[in-house]
């Protein structure tokens, strides 16, 4: 990313804020991984290690009343929407204080009050839902936008096609992100699609498409901001492909031996936090001391989150039976 552009188009405080969230995301997910390796977390652990700039980038470009319809590598977006580290760890530990009260696990976090649509494990199911949310805004004449995200694998499903098509036909205020981290579990891109750039598909639906360096938070932010503004102005959807690399396995139990070592080494040099620090240093917005300070800050926050989660109670068996249906009073009649 051209630092001159960054200097011009992004406020220093905003960039520092994004750096903070990159660090918070990384530290939180590292802590969760450690808990998992200690056997204190059961079930699956999915991180966005090496891909933090995508979620942080787009979520930083949203307004308060906008909505996100994320997938499982969007921890940065959760944090920016106001989900706390304590809640995230509580969710992982299956505690009653997590956003789903133990009903669902790992990153299946949803909260309408904070504008987060809870997703399901079936990738790309969240895309039609995102278009529907955008449809509601359009019907009501609200200047709100939905940003949704999925992986390279997610774009193979029919729901991707149906959502992109519908959004374009109806010019809905939704922005489609694609975290192209080159692997869907063990499936490399070349077995997932016959094209090289997912963005080629955008044209087929009649919507504009962008490619961006997914490890450059400033670049992602700028592209996202532009697309979001467009949507907000009633100009319809955009598809944004973020090129990145999945640095850990599909989940933390996957050693990902199928990924060539050289690829990982190459992308390690392009680590999003590293890149952000380089950018901030170059722009003279921050220094080593500042980075250390942020590091300490996020460490404290994450530890407080761990303590909160560990003190929290587990739900009790009979709670299984609660909440299948909504009551009348939960929605306006």
């Amino acid at each position: 990313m051209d630092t001159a552009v960054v200097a011009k188009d992004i406020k220093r405080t905003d960039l520092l804020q994004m750096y903070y969230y990159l660090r918070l995301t990384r530290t939180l997910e590292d802590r969760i991984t450690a808990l998992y390796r200690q056997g204190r977390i059961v079930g699956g652990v999915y991180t966005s290690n090496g891909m933090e700039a995508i979620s942080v980038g787009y979520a930083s470009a949203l307004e308060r009343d906008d909505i996100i319809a994320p997938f499982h590598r969007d921890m940065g977006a959760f944090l920016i929407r106001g989900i706390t580290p304590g809640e995230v760890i509580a969710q992982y530990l299956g505690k009653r204080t997590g956003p789903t009260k133990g009903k669902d696990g790992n990153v299946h976090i949803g909260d309408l009050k904070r504008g987060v649509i809870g997703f399901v494990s079936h990738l790309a199911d969240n895309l039609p839902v995102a278009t529907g949310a955008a449809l509601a805004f359009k019907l009501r004449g609200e200047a709100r936008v939905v940003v949704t995200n999925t992986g390279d694998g997610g774009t193979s499903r029919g729901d991707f096609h149906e959502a992109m098509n519908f959004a374009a036909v109806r010019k809905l205020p939704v922005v489609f992100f694609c975290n192209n981290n080159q692997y869907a579990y063990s499936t490399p891109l070349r077995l997932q699609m016959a094209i090289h750039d997912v963005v080629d598909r955008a044209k087929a639906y009649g919507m504009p498409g962008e490619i961006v360096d997914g490890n450059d938070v400033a670049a992602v932010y700028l592209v996202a901001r532009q697309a979001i503004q467009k949507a907000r102005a009633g100009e319809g959807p955009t598809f944004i492909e973020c090129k990145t690399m999945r640095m850990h396995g599909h989940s933390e139990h996957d050693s990902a031996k199928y990924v060539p070592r050289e690829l990982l080494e190459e992308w390690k040099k392009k680590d999003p936090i590293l890149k952000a620090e380089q950018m901030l240093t170059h722009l003279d917005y921050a220094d080593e001391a500042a980075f250390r300070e942020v590091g300490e800050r996020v460490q404290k926050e994450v530890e407080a989150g761990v303590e909160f989660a560990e003190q929290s109670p587990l739900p009790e068996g009979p709670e299984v039976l609660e909440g299948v249906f909504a009551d009348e009073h939960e929605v306006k009649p």
Partner: protein
Amino acid sequence: MTTTAAGREVTYLEAISEALDEEMSRDERVFLMGEDIGPYGGAFRITEGFQKKYGEWRVLDTPLAESGFVGAAIGAAMMGMRPVVEMQFADFISCAFDQITEVAATAHYRWGAAVPMVIRAPFGGGVHGGPFHSECPEGWFFHSPGLKLVAPSTPYDAKGLLKAAIRDPNPVIYFEHKFLYRRIKAVLPTEDYIIPIGKAEVKRAGTDISVITYGAMVHLALEAAEVLTKEGINLEVVDLRTLMPLDKETVFESVRKTSKAIMLHEDNKTGGIGAEIAALLAEECFDCLDGPILRIAAPDTPVPFSTPLEEFFLPKASDVLAAARKLASY
């Protein structure tokens, strides 16, 4: 476009249309999505004239993409709208099975998000529709916790249940029987009324055998009841109206009285709703039974096309008469 006039006789189809019209007038959050529902008025003409009245954004012609537009309905519902999705035929609901069972049905349970969405599904056979225009898919959804399912058998129930479904904060699949569309009529009240979801109705009181049924089969049961009355066999016909949640109390009350029960539905026999009710009776009403619980349903095959095959496939009056006579004399 139907306009309500005091005490006018309407068909089952018109009752559905009226319910949609009235709810859309009453609540601006209600909007429709489906294939060909706009200028065309819908495959069955239920939304004829609606787009002219409510505009193209409240009567949306969708692309041919059931998963996509059901998913969209879910998203819109989460944002506070009240979408009513029309499946052109219930048979196509399978394309949206994933969104319905994984996203809509689990959202509130998992993260407290209400999904006040209605999916209208024209189901049932007897119209020479063949395997993909005559299915009864309610069984699949009966087994997915988090969904409500209704199946009216009369114009009065059709209107009242659709209104209730639209006003319910949960995802509701509304099974309207296409065979009944123009075949039955009734005079409906002009005032607003709803039929509560989760309440069955005894359509015919009797003393000897309880026939538990829904949809078009209600009328089959009533026909059979008339014949059997002359033979001294007095059927009680219980119309479930809501399939999920089941009104166990009304069913149990009936079978406690008659001590004999027949399940009657058009859906395939194995794993149909009749099986669940039979199990409930055996489990919670065992001491009230004076005979085995019988089930009359379609055989376990796809719906056939050729007329003699479809006639054999669908439950008919003679099936009900034979079963009732056998059970009565047991």
